[in-house]
């Protein structure tokens, strides 16, 4: 019996030893109690109200942060006031934010300006001048290998739209399809939205889409940064010139601030920091602009409305 006692003692000892080592021992940086929780604090409104700048999703959100970062920094320095970048997936969301006063300044698309101007009096602040011009075009892009030379050749193919109310990305190609006596839904085999122009370019370059209409400014800006895009894509159609996408403000913005902002944009090209910021977004300088610059677009849109 004594023998079995010894045996079981040895066994218990064995279990104990292994059980001891079963407690993990790792070099922990610190101790955190995951169950000791507090309610998340509601964000406190800081004493300084930031200037909220919206950038419409012409290019992807990440690309926008990279491109507009310097410009917003310069603005922050000039105004001596924090500047907050606001982005939304669609142009209409930006328009809504402007209308509700939740955004002070916005870089919007031409068609969004027209819609905002007509709806709640969105005001032009300045417009960018690119390569000496204040116009841009809608470019019909196809993959380089594509045999298509015309919108008619894209019948039954996959087509990428950018934003639902984008002039260059949706309105103009729709207009072209209507001229063929069809509607995009019937004309193209399949349609999808990329919500930004850079994504549409990449969709064509990667042959996800057989065709797309993009903003010429974005396309050229892209070509300048990445030459391979030019090798992978081909422009088969160029639209008549459209008024360039402007910088707009909420009509209820204080006139003083509006003036200050206008001065900032117009003088931006005069100092090296400003030039660098302009270069980052592919703009020569900002210039004042009148609503009349967008008359041709307005006509096109009303044509489109009429045929609907």
């Amino acid at each position, binding site marked *: 019996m004594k023998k079995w006692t010894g045996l079981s003692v040895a066994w218990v000892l*064995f279990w104990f030893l292994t059980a001891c080592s079963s407690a993990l021992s790792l*070099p922990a*940086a*610190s101790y955190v109690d995951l169950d000791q929780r507090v309610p998340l604090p509601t964000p406190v409104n800081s004493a300084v109200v930031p200037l909220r700048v919206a950038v419409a999703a012409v290019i992807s959100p990440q690309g926008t*942060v990279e491109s507009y970062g310097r410009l917003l920094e310069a603005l922050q320095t000039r105004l001596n006031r924090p500047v907050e970048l606001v*982005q939304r997936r669609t142009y209409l969301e930006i328009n809504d934010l402007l209308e509700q006063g939740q955004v002070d300044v916005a870089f919007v698309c031409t068609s969004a300006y027209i819609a905002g101007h007509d709806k709640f009096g969105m005001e032009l602040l300045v417009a960018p001048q690119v390569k000496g011009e204040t116009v841009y075009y809608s470019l019909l892009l196809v993959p380089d290998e594509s045999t298509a030379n015309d919108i008619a050749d894209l019948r039954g193919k996959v087509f990428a739209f950018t934003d639902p109310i984008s002039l260059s990305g949706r309105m103009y190609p729709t207009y072209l399809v209507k001229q063929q006596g069809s509607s995009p839904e019937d004309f193209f085999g399949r349609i999808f939205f990329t919500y930004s122009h850079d994504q549409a370019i990449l969709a064509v370059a990667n042959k996800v889409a057989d065709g797309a209409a993009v903003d010429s400014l974005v396309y050229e800006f892209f070509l300048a940064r990445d030459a391979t895009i030019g090798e992978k894509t081909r422009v088969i159609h160029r639209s008549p010139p459209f008024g360039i996408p402007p910088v707009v403000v909420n009509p209820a913005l204080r006139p003083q601030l509006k003036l200050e902002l206008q001065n900032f944009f117009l003088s931006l090209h005069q100092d090296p920091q400003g030039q660098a910021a302009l270069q980052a977004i592919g703009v020569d300088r900002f210039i004042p602009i009148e609503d009349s610059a967008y008359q041709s677009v307005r006509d096109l849109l009303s044509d489109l409305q009429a045929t609907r």
Partner: protein
Amino acid sequence: MQIHPSLRNLLQRFWDIAGGVSVRSKILGIVLGLVLLLGLGITVQVRQALTQTMAAQLAEQSVSVARDLAARSTDLILLNDLFALHRLLQETKANNQNVAYAFLLDSQGHVLASTFGETFPVDLITANPIEPTAHHRTLIFATNQGYVWDTAVPILEGQVGVARVGLSDTSLRATLTTITNQLLLTTALVSLIGVTAATFLTWILTRPILDLAQAAQAVARGDFTQRVKRWANDEIGELATAFNQMVGELAKADEIRREREILRRQLLEKVIVTQEEERKRIARELHDSTSQTLTSLIMGLKVMESSCSDLNIQLQAHDLRQIAAQTLEEVHDLAMQLRPRLLDDLGLRAALERLVKEWQMRHRLSIDLMYHVPHERLPDVVETALYRIIQEALTNVARHAQARNVSVLIEQRGEELVAVVEDDGVGFDISRIEMGDSAQAHLGLAGMQERAALLGGTITFESEIGRGTSIYIQLPIPKAEENEVENYDFARG
């Protein structure tokens, strides 16, 4: 080799315990010890290796999940799509069982979305700060729910915020527990097999050894018929064969010894019988013939003395008569010493009384004789042997002991005759006598023992230098059967 005393002490204590248990326990102990040691070693090693590998994997996985989350959340944060962020975090957690938590901080370090819901652990935000330019940073936290591999990944170099993911050690612990249990179970099974095998082995090993031990004990008791079975052709089998050979040889040697012993006994008996007969004959001769002649001579000399008138011749005859009388006395003594007639005629008691008297006279000893035997006469052989033994004992006392008092006790105890001879002399060292230091003394003692042994009795000597000597004699009283009396019929002739 020099061994430290404490180590030697420890070894000695270990051996006291290990050496004290049976072979079965030793083999069981070795087998179990080795199996358990191996099991423990392997378990610990496997656990260590597994922990290291899995910890590294968890760290890697933590980085990849965090980077994936950072990449997928960038646009959602920029677009302020909080619901999509919330869904992304839930999906991240749902798709990866190891994810304990995931959350996103904005560029100011405020929580944008987290898997914790409405509340948030107090110290978690500040627990893993990261430089905006860093690729990622992984830390191991000890938490109340086990270890957590926490990775922080800055989103767009921190301009957008930070993605944080914590991977718990649940799967690691579960795997460790499973593996440990499996290994321990295996060890237990192997131990069980080991115990069975060891028990069987012990049985195989110890059965022939126990057989051998039993047989050896039987041989020690004098049973030379014992043979052990050769169970196997191994060393123990060799031992069994050698043992059987040895027992065979021992049996032969014992047979020879036995025969020699019988021969020796017979020879001794014959010698003693012949000696006693010769003594008796000489004593009788001295008594009957020589004594008669001497008496005649004395009578003649007396006649001559009284009948002769010559004074010279008268004196000479007187002297001669004196000499003849003295010679007669001496012849009497001699006959008496050779074989007292009293022993044959009146028995042991009378013979001993006479012997004692004579010894007292001759050696100036005080001898106290106590004789308590109910029988009038004992068998001749017993009487003769006891007489001779006591005679030898008293001779020794007279020669060596320098004693003043001697007591001789003879009594019957049951079927035994017990005699004790004690003196208050100088004593002697028994061991030295028995070692053959003094050949003659040894021979004397041995002669007494032989006499007693011939009758199936024993003699015990007790002595110490300066404290006297005691001799205990035990003799069985033989039943007076005819053939036996015939055998020992030397006393009465």
